[in-house]
């Protein structure tokens, strides 16, 4: 019998109906309830997981108690095993713990129901070690780890569990700064990557061609960078899967969410702090290679704070190389890439057109603006 994990964040989406732009944090949740918010996620979860009924005798669902999954699964007649007793006040910690228990129990697929905040909690629990899939129920859905609709999530999970031939892809976990969002400022940030079964027509942000093309695209970009590396120059490799391809191309260890520094195609230092980077750029010729996050296309200031305003001041504009898969450029729909270093003068100085590398020997002239 196949083991399937299910974690519902029952409070996800409550803030949206009452105009709170998200439900992260206990205070906001209380405010939402006071404003009359109803639980959205359990209802949406039902719409998704009922699509698994055709294989209900072949699977057992590992879930958390109450409306974090148990109630919905039992209501539909699934085989259920509760692996975590919920306190009744679902917190991000419970989602995280539930997810890591499911990883230990070796579930074939972990389905979670919520929004960007829930995806972050799942990522904290399991990293990109197991295959997951999101049923969208939250107010904010920027992370392409979610299917388009609860029903599509259910259909995709069904196909995956039936053993159809699938590509599993790493997708970004992106969240916005909710405090800024409530002041009508939208700033997204990359938190990590989850593994999801991929079928173009089911997932969010499906404007791109096929996942393999994305991977091949990243490899081609990396090859271009590697082929044109200059001896004696330090290369500061920013976070992301596109930049990771450079490290993979050189057979070097990498930190997906951190900054690595290489010289003469050898690793100088992994997971560098702002101080480490400053030390290098102050004393030696160096170049910075960065890639935008998906969705809003933040280049600096979101998920790579180590590359601070001080670092940028030292490194100079012409030594910043931007690389991006075609998919990310397509998803921007013509909107500029964004920077937010925290220093207005630096942000202004960085504005303008850049050659963004999108393939081997292929650039796009693209506008960069302050975020």
């Amino acid at each position, binding site marked *: 019998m196949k083991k399937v994990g299910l974690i519902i964040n029952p409070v996800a989406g409550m803030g949206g109906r009452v105009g709170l732009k998200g439900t992260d944090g206990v205070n906001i949740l209380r405010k939402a309830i006071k404003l009359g918010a109803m639980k959205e996620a359990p209802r949406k979860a039902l719409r998704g997981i009922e699509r698994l009924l055709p294989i209900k005798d072949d699977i057992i669902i590992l879930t958390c108690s109450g409306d974090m999954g148990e109630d919905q699964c039992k209501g539909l007649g699934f085989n259920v095993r509760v692996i975590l007793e919920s306190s009744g006040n679902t917190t991000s910690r419970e989602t995280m713990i539930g997810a890591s228990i499911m990883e230990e129990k070796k579930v074939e697929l972990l389905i979670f129901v919520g929004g960007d905040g829930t995806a972050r909690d799942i990522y904290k629990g399991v990293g990109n070690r197991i295959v997951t899939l999101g049923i969208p129920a939250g107010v904010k859905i920027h992370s392409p780890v979610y299917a*388009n*609709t609860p029903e*599509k999530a259910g259909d995709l999970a069904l196909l995956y569990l039936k053993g159809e*031939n699938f*590509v599993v892809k790493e997708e970004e976990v992106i969240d916005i700064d909710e405090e800024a969002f409530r002041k009508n400022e939208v700033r997204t940030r990359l938190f990590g990557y989850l593994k999801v079964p991929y079928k173009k*027509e089911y997932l969010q942000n499906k*404007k*791109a*061609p*096929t996942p*393999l*093309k994305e991977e*091949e695209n990243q490899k081609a970009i990396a090859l271009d960078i590697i082929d044109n590396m200059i001896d004696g120059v330090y290369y500061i490799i920013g976070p992301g899967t596109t930049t990771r391809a450079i490290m993979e191309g050189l057979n070097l260890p990498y930190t997906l969410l951190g900054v690595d520094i290489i010289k003469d195609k050898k690793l100088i230092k992994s997971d560098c702090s702002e101080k480490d980077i400053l030390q290098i750029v102050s004393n030696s010729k160096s170049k910075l290679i960065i890639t935008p996050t998906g969705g809003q296309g933040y280049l600096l200031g979101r998920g790579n704070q180590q590359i601070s305003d001080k670092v940028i001041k030292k490194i100079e504009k012409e030594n910043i190389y931007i690389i991006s898969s*075609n*998919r990310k450029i*397509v998803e921007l729909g*013509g909107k500029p890439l964004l920077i937010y270093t925290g220093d207005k003068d630096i942000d202004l100085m960085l504005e*303008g*057109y850049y*050659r963004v590398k*999108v*393939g081997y*020997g*292929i*650039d*796009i*002239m*693209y*506008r960069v603006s302050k975020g």
Partner: protein
Amino acid sequence: MKRIDRNHKVRNFHQAKWDEPIIFELSQKGERGILVPEAEEEIVNKVGDGVSSIPKAMRRKELPNLPEINQKRVLMHYLRLSQETLGGDFNVEIGQGTCTVKYNPKINDKLASTEKMTELHPLQDESTVQGILEIMYKTDLCMREISGMDQFTFQPGGGSQAIMTMASLVRMYHRINGEEDQRDEIITTIYSHPSDAAAPALKGYKIINIMPDENGYPDYEAFKKAVSERTAAFFVANPEDTGIFNPRIKEFTDLVTKAGGLNCYDQANANGLLGVTRAKEAGFHMCFFNLHKTFSTPHGCGGPGSGALGVVKELKPYLPKPIVDFNGEKYFLNYELENSIGKVRIFNGVPQAVLKAYAWIMSLGAEGLYEVGKIAVLNNNYLFKKLLEHKAVDAPYIRGKQRVEQVRYTLEKLTEDTGITSGDVARRVMDFGMHYWTSHHPYYIPEPITLEPTESTSKEDLDEYIATLHHIFDEAYENPEIIQGAPHRSTIHQVDESSFDDPEKWAPTWRVYLRKTK
């Protein structure tokens, strides 16, 4: 007798209902189509057995694994395949988007099928082929008038090969001027044809793409930043595949000329511009037309096509050898091109394609060609207006303004509302005996369809195409399952595309197929 009701616009169609095997699968050991007689003894004595004169190292050790099949079965096989094909001559062929597909007058096929053409050999002496040389020369003169260029070659076998030839001309031009190493960049635009980037890239150039501005025109400010002393050339289509014509094109080409680069015009989208604008006045140094698209010679399966490539007089010495010339008395093949890039194709192109294009041009005359452009634009804008009446369809950029000869539409709203994608709709239109192509990756315009009706589609045909698409869009909102399972009336229903990117699953030849599957 039952009368066929043709009052409704949406036509139900059924494709041939069988899946014809690959010819290799029909092979039967020992079966033969032709039994080639043994050579007579006298001949063998004189020239040997025909094999021993080939060097030993070059002789194959095993017989080739060719299909063994008799003539009748070969004929049946190909007839069945043709029945499985949704050919341009029996559907409203406007969905090839970016490929101008128009009616090919059958009389021109007849001309090209006469013995005078079919029995020609490209190695014949010039004095014996004056007729076809005259036609090639006169077609060159017509193309000069249409474009403002000073010399054409018909050697490239298609549009992409013409682009490749342009890239070779650019390289040779800068080599002769001592700037080959310095000028290593080609600028193009996102909505130009992908070959405008791909061919120069294959030639070793770095490519810089220009994104569109908010109106869909190439972003001039970005372009200014891209042009430099490293610019070798600017390759662009105008109108681009959005059907939007860049009215500031001369400012773009002037910038490049001033910087020492060349301007190369991809005129695959020229059908709406015949008699309206010319490459020369727009500041281009070279351009190409597809005779097999704009000039009505058949377009299909990669040939036989002709990418007619024209250049300004300064670049004539760089053209591929030979060009067809005339000395006042006779037509001849001119090899006197001092900086020639050499040959890009064996012999001198596809003379049948040139003949058909010449016949088409001469049947229309200058006024007729202008009429072609006008009707193509009118048809396109009728289709544009009617399609946009459905909530499922939109077309980004320059709202309220006309397009030239084609439009890249988006079905993004349909997909958001119903989950039905452009690819799903493309499969469903086959159930109505039509097709369209979802256009180039990556999809800068989400869920795209690119339609180009040309001048040869009647209003009735356009109305049928529009009614069919509207019918399918309504289905998407009311009964999406019927589209998700489409096509229902075809031999092959849905193709699993998951292996398209996986070289391990490709089988370009029968031998590879056998190796990977057995």
